[in-house]
């Protein structure tokens, strides 16, 4: 509704102490300023994540300081570090246990693609093979400023989510899955090696 009211009239009213807003705006404002991340780290990126939450970089300025030790209370999963194939089912299970709406930040080269360990036998080539990712941060490891930037990007994304209509947010769509199959330990690799519903890489056309 905010776009249906004249911006000038709105700021005039605000000067008089009357704040006109819409349900959607208020709802998203509340959600984006209180994103509780899940407290877990996988590798060196986690050290940068800890630094981001500490006093110098102070993630609290963006409402993300409450790291929850339980997935039931978390809104955001920061996949900070190398996801080994042995750890991947646990990550997917943690994601499944988080309540909707939930978001994922894939932090660092390893969580995006496997990074320097990409061709190793034991490292998953990106967490986006099994769960949908909202924001990717490149870097090895990314600096705390980069994580703050990703956090702000996520806030922007939440702010733009619609509550009604055709383009409403995915978590409001009952048909949209909020849980994804947990890969099983196979004899040679994880089974399946990627979830085709989630992982749709670009097709490379080469000679």
């Amino acid at each position, binding site marked *: 509704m905010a776009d249906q009211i004249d911006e000038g009239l709105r700021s005039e009213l605000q000067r008089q102490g009357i704040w006109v807003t819409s349900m959607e705006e208020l709802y998203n404002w509340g959600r984006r300023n209180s994103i509780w991340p899940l407290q877990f780290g996988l590798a060196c990126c986690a050290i940068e994540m800890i630094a981001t939450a500490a006093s110098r970089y102070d993630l609290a300025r963006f409402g993300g300081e409450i790291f929850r030790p339980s997935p039931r209370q978390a809104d955001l999963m920061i996949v900070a570090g190398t996801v080994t*194939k*042995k750890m991947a089912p646990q990550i997917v299970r943690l994601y499944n246990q988080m309540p909707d709406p939930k978001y994922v930040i894939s932090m660092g080269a390893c969580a995006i693609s496997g990074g320097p360990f990409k*061709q*190793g*036998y*034991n490292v998953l*080539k990106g967490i986006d093979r099994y769960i949908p990712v909202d924001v990717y941060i490149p870097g090895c490891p990314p600096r705390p400023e980069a994580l703050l930037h990703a956090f702000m990007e996520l806030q922007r994304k939440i702010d733009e989510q619609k509550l009604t209509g055709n383009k409403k947010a995915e978590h409001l769509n009952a048909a949209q899955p909020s849980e994804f199959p947990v890969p099983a*330990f*196979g*004899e*040679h*690799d994880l089974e399946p*090696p*990627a979830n085709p519903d989630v992982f749709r*890489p*670009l*097709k*490379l*056309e*080469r*000679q």
Partner: protein
Amino acid sequence: MESLEQIKARAEAAVPGAKIDIVPNPGPSHQSSLLIDNEHAPAVARFLRIDPALRLDFCSNATGVDWLDRTVKKTVKVKKVIDGVEKEVDETQAEFFPGYLEAVYHLYSMTHKHGPVIIRTRTADRADGARLPSLTPTWRSAEFQEREIFDLYGIRFDGHPDLRRILMWDEFVDHPMRKDYREPDDYEYEPTPHDDVLERAKQHYTARPQLDGAENITAQK
């Protein structure tokens, strides 16, 4: 510390029947090692640990080595009778060496502050015969490292108290540090492939559509 020759002589005297070879290392480190036969390896290990002059009470590292089958070709001069005349002919002979796996232990002495003494044991082959005696009863610190060798190289240690995989999951059947291991094919998205990765990524390529240039002409209009 004594030289390896002295250690070998004393160990062979202390453990009747033990057969120890010195494996030379011509590299800059000159860290030659003692190759111990499998049957007497636990007794020799015990000797190395309790002998008052050696007291190798600390096993700092245990690791595996994979040696593949190899064929060495040699050119030998052979005397042959050709057309009734004896001649010296060059002949190429191929000699086959079967592969095996090794476990290597680096031993130090905390008491005497000396080391390392490197010992190794060798399996019969790389398949069913990949068995070695465990040295965990002598050096407790070898327990996890022998589990790792079992996990990554597939050497089974007889006498190990708890021989399970330690890094890979229990359902896994391969041994990734073996030289003939091939990792599963998940090379479907490699934007910047090179070398071996390029060869494997090529199997996933879709051919670029052949353009004849006509579409550019229509675009210019």
